């Protein structure tokens, strides 16, 4: 075509620009000094961000010389990306919320400050204070004998039910199901096709297609997700197959459940169309004021064992300077102290980190105002920690996509689906960074 002659000059200019860009890339930035505010990166948004902001502000008022900069990332995915990017760039925050499986990666690349020296330091935890923290939380935070994170926003699963619908079908509204077999039987009774058109107007249960329910069913059935040393999966065991078979019966074969991909199942429940759902203890604050029936709240039904996996995240402290790490720890310690953790729990439905918080007036009032909530919190005594293997974050997604979903959609049988997912998840566990 036309106009050839200028190409060289254009190319030259482009190369020049590129060279300039790279040449001006500086080296590592020096670590921030102690006067910079302590950075807290978290994923609390919506009804959960205000309580956090209030507490952060209260800390600032009590310690005017130590500013805390709270950065909200209203999505865990974005938070995980941001943490990875900041660590790769050499500029991590001081404190961040973290799932167990992210922690493992961060330990491996030496980005975290271990907690034990902070516990033992001058502003540490006395033996008495440490014993006040629920043992399961510290157990979940420990990897290879070292505590790497600290419980921050932990939750348990709970049973939510519609007492009005219970009455309508002749169930005792003060007697929620205590076992999954009962749950299943209640679900059938609550599924009512009043006008006989073959389509029920009310359903027994509603659920998301999620691995969470399976995780609790398998541990209640005496099985486990991973082997004891966490090097291989164990969810394709007979206990696991039985758990998934039960789940398929309950949510698909009985015809008494509404299944949804996302969180729509909660809306069906709030609309009064569904008798029971299983949800997080935190769901309560999101349901407030959105239903017009009498809400029942109870512990999760039990299987062979009465237990479940604790959900939610910890916080970690990043390696920066000893002074900054000390201040970061001081904030974490303050936030999880009896007074603050009681307030935090009362406002959000996350579990109090300390046993002593259960007798704090703020929490006592809250538990009195919400019958059943005490029972829900009490499940913590019997709960188990999440697996910690770094490959499990990916393995869990495989379990959900390749076993739970195809089975609930009727495309696969539980045993074959779990076996196929196990093969793939084992690869993640073996090669997972």
């Amino acid at each position, binding site marked *: 075509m*036309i106009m050839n002659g200028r190409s060289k000059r254009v190319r030259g200019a482009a190369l020049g620009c590129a060279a300039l860009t790279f040449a001006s890339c500086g080296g590592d930035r020096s670590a921030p000094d102690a006067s910079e505010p302590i950075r807290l990166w978290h994923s609390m948004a919506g009804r959960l961000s205000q309580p956090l902001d209030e507490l952060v502000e209260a800390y600032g008022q009590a310690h005017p010389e130590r500013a805390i900069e709270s950065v909200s990332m209203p999505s865990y995915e974005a938070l995980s990306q941001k943490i990875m990017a900041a660590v790769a760039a050499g500029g991590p925050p001081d404190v961040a919320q973290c799932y167990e499986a992210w922690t493992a990666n961060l330990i491996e690349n030496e980005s975290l400050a271990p907690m034990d020296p902070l516990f033992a330091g001058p502003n540490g935890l006395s033996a008495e204070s440490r014993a006040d923290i629920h043992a399961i939380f510290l157990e979940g935070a420990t990897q290879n004998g070292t505590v790497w994170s600290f419980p921050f926003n932990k939750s348990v699963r709970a049973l939510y039910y519609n007492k009005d619908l219970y009455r309508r079908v002749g169930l005792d509204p003060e007697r929620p199901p205590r076992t999954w077999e009962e749950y299943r039987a209640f679900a059938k009774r609550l599924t009512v096709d009043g006008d006989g058109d073959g389509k029920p107007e009310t359903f027994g249960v509603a659920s998301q297609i999620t691995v969470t329910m399976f995780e609790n069913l398998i541990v209640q059935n005496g099985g486990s997700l991973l082997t004891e040393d966490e090097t291989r999966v164990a969810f394709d065991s007979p206990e696991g197959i039985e758990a998934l078979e039960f789940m398929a019966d309950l949510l698909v074969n009985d015809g008494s459940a509404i299944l949804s991909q996302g969180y729509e199942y909660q809306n069906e429940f709030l609309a009064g169309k569904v008798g029971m759902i299983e949800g997080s203890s935190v769901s309560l604050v*999101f349901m407030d004021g959105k239903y017009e029936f009498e809400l029942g709240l109870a512990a999760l039904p039990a299987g062979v064992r009465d237990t479940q996996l604790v959900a939610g995240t910890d916080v970690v402290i990043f390696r920066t300077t000893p002074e900054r790490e000390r201040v970061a720890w001081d904030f974490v310690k303050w936030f999880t102290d009896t007074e603050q953790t009681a307030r935090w729990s009362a406002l959000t439905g996350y579990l109090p980190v300390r046993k002593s918080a259960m007798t704090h007036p703020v929490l006592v009032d809250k538990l009195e105002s919400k019958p059943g909530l005490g029972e829900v919190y009490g499940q913590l005594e019997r709960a188990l920690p999440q697996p910690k293997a770094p490959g499990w974050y990916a393995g869990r997604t495989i379990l959900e996509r390749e076993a739970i979903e195809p089975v609930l959609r009727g495309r696969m049988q539980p045993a074959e689906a779990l076996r196929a997912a196990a093969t793939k998840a084992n690869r993640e566990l073996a090669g997972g960074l």
Partner: protein
Amino acid sequence: MHEAVLGLRRNWAVHALLIVGALSFVIPFYWMIGTSLKGGAELFETPPTWFPRSLEFGNYPEAWNTVPFPRYFANTIFVAVSIVLGVVVTSGLSAFAFAFFRFRGREGIFNGFLSTMMVPEPVYIISSYVLLYHLPGGGRDGWIDDYSALIVPWLAHVFSIFLLRQHFLSFPRDLVDAAVIDGCSPVRFLFVIVLPLSKAALTTVCLFTFINTWNSFLWPLVVTNSDTIRPIQVGLAYFAQEQGTEHGLMMAAAVFSIAPLLVAYFFAQKQIIASLTHTGLKG
């Protein structure tokens, strides 16, 4: 007479089809506005109510006041306008080069550009963050948490280059030849002939870029810390949480966050349709 009746009937059929099509676009908007005016339990009623029983305007002020929306709006407009200006310049010039210059490796470079469109965001987000962090200037974290991180990486946009190049290639050879024979310089050719003939395509580029920027979420969230520079989508995400979504508030926020886009679209509508039919990219 007979023909007129047939024509009328065909018109009816066409119109009926168009009405169905139009409804499928309008209903989501109606639903958004309707939901934003519902309160409490009415949100989840089944069957859902088409007209809110009582209009609850309270969701609007509540959504507006829960999140610093005025600031988010100002940020988004500033960032979007800057990016649009940048994209028009960079994609105009590079599309011009790809369409009218002949140089070694032209097809290779162009294909290289296009191939970058296949790289999904999560793949480059970390390395881009690291690069911005180490760039000189800016604050404690380099360009992170600065408007430059929101704007500069997006100043070149491959799809816009592609769109403009296709448009430029559709110019008749005679026009180009005539310009060359008359001694028109490349710069003059660009400004006097090419750009004035490409208004529709440029409008499309502007609008697409504007909408993309308006909707971007993960990138601005990862490269910013301060509420003072965050954009509008971050505000919307505030209402959609893992444990539950605040539907009424979310819809109210959605209404005022897309309002500027609708206004922009109404003004640019004619140009967009012209350019889409012209490039063969019928949407």
